[in-house]
């Protein structure tokens, strides 16, 4: 096992974002010098972090990265992660786990926007809240997340799981507006409430355990159903897009 510990050094201007797409297990396996970007300046990794590496590993799967300190403005950690494990003690900046295809990312605090964008596989666990576009696609793209699992224990912002095309997304708190918009397939579970879920969905399943506020009128009501012994209402749609998705909600309100 190789254990890499990265502790963020105190920064003079902590609001300046740092782009650190290199922080993935395979980088440390190769043993090459590692650089991160701050604005247009390329800095060696140890200028930003105190780096400790214990043990050795032959395979990416055996590498663990622990990151502590103020990481809320560090972006793109775990981009293209394919194996291994990254544990973040506190909050994490935008685009964490972009395009990851395997491995695990655990976040102790909150995640900023685009957590697990266009994810292909692997697992992300966020113990705090996630901001907008969690597990979503990107501007103009037709396919968002296509595989893997994202689990958020807090709340999420707007556009949760936009363009979801596979995989599983579970939110234990509330989601914001337009959750599951443009969903093609995959499964989205919201334990709390959300508003206007699943606009333009074509397929897949979304379950809202709380209230779906401002339900879209373009979903055809199928009727009552039960999930784990609780009464739910099932809808299909979005019929405005000839869609055949399943939207199952505990409770719903239409816009006044």
């Amino acid at each position, binding site marked *: 096992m190789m254990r890499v510990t990265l502790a963020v050094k105190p920064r003079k201007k902590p609001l300046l974002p740092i782009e650190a797409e290199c922080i993935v297990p395979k980088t440390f396996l190769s043993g090459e010098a590692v650089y991160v970007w701050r604005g247009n300046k390329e800095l060696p990794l140890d200028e930003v972090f105190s780096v400790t590496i214990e043990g050795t590993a032959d395979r990416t799967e055996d590498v663990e990265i622990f990151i502590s300190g103020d990481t809320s403005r560090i972006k793109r950690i775990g981009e293209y992660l394919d194996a291994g494990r990254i544990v973040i003690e506190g909050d994490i900046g935008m685009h964490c786990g972009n395009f990851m295809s395997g491995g695990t990312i655990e976040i102790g605090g909150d995640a900023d926007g685009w957590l697990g964008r266009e994810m292909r596989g692997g697992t992300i666990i966020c113990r705090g809240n996630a901001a907008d576009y969690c597990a979503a696609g*990107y*501007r*103009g*793209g*037709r396919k968002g997340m296509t595989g893997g699992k994202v689990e958020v224990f807090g709340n999420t912002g707007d556009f949760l799981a936009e363009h979801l095309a596979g995989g599983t997304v579970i939110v234990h708190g509330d989601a914001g507006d337009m959750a599951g918009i443009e969903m093609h397939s995959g499964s989205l579970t919201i334990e709390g409430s959300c508003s206007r879920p699943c606009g333009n969905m074509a397929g897949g399943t979304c379950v809202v355990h709380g209230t779906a506020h401002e339900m879209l009128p373009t979903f055809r009501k199928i009727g009552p159903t039960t999930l784990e012994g609780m009464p739910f209402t099932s809808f299909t749609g979005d019929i405005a*897009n*000839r869609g055949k998705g399943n939207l199952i909600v505990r409770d719903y309100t239409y816009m006044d």
Partner: protein
Amino acid sequence: MSEMLIKNAFVIDPLNGINGEVMDIAIRDGKIVEAVGDAAEVIDARRNLTLPGGVDSHTHICGTKVNFGRYMSPEDMRAGRTPRRGHMHATSGYSVPTTYGNSYRYSAMGYTTLLEGAMAPLEARHTHEEFSYTPLQDTMANALFDGNWSVLEAVRDGDTKRVAAVIAWVLSAVKGFAVKLTNPGGTEAWGWGENVDCIQKPIANFEVSPAEIIRTIVEANELLHLPHSVHLHCNNLGKPGNYTCTMGTFGLIPDLNKKRQTLYATHVQYHAYGGSGWNDFCSKSEPIANMVNMRPQIAIDMGQVMFGKTTTMTADGPMEFNLYRLHHDKWSNHDVELETGSGIIPVLYRRKNLVNSVMWAIGLELALLVDDPWRCLLTTDNPNGAPFVRYPEIIALLMSKRYREEELATVHPDTEHRVPLPAIDRELDWHDIAVMTRAAQAKALGIVDIGKGHLAPGADADVAIYPIRVDETDPSVDYRRVIDAFSRTEYTIKRGRVVCRSGECVVDGNNTTIWVKPKVSPEYDMGKDPDFIRKFDRYYTVRMRNYPVQDEYLKRNLCIETEAEL
């Protein structure tokens, strides 16, 4: 005074009857000359294929429509990204790249002159602004007249001279190069939610038929003695069975000009469809090619479709709406006041799709069945059929039957029953390719006299040296080498200096915008015509004095003045 000598060049220069001669090319101050002194910079072409700089007579690289394609497809900007390097700016985009992206990629392929196929006159400023950031090619733009109210009214009144006068005024006002007609009448009808079916039925409000519009504008174009002919995108684009309409349109065209064609029919691939619907969709390239063979007044370009992602953009708004209803993806639609409209949608041409496979075959068939390469030009209607970076593959397909067979084996299996392509044995040679990609394009555009498309003394020193030895390459077998060679020149020389070396652009560049100014007598000066002025005041959102493109939009430019018969 700057001098350059290209030594040991294996030259094919069709306009001057040179077909594979090893010679030296001397350049002084941006022009080809007979000889230069000993102090000249020397480039050794090492007997590599050397051609005049490439000319693209129909592409969409600049202007509001292209820019809206960029807005609409942020995902396209994630492809084709290159960082800033030396003299090259950062670029991004694949089917609708940034202006620098277009310019660098064209330059790497040896292209030095480009024609933007469709510019809405009212929005001409944007096109000219983007031209100034397309630094490595000389540029020109066709102005759209398909739905121009003043033109339509003059056509209705049977007043060909007034049509010519309006065209003359607009072309010089917006610094355009030639007349473009896109689905004539149809785009105006689309403003009212309608379209035209073929060419005989009149459109509402003006009571003129597409046939009348086309015939009158073709005649008006010759009255103005414009360098280029009318540039026509026929009616009924992309509809099964539309080849009859295309044949009817070609039949309308008289032979009016001894120097060049009277009609340039663009992306004819999209207009050569048989069948009554998508189920019995098939190729009708044979009758279309026969028609072109019989009528020397017509030149066409292929509009070749290549498989993959791209963005379609055209002033043919109703056609794009039909396409949107097939694809159910993004769609944008635009109306340009009294002039024209447009539509944009992204598409993915798939090998597994029968219709797409047939479309792919038709473009190649047209190029192979039209006997005279001078009258069938190599284009994709970039980016409608495919981005222009696919040209090398098209060249290889035309030169190698074996490559065509390999590709045919990967497309939809029913394709071979619907197209004549498998039965065509013709393989084009290097000379044909040189004709289709530069000489014939320059001739069709009427820019040979200003020094484009050839290498005789006096011509612009636009030269492309490709890393391939013609005498050592059998293109029907080594088609991969052909693709590689045409993808990246060894040297692209523009106006006497090396602008691109092995794909790397080495100067900032400075292009020339070419435009025309027909001289008409005072009585046909529309700028003083009370009816025309009233139309501006009443209907346009701009005043007439604000309409012309100011000179500051044109940096280096070349104005071709013509003496009109008005």
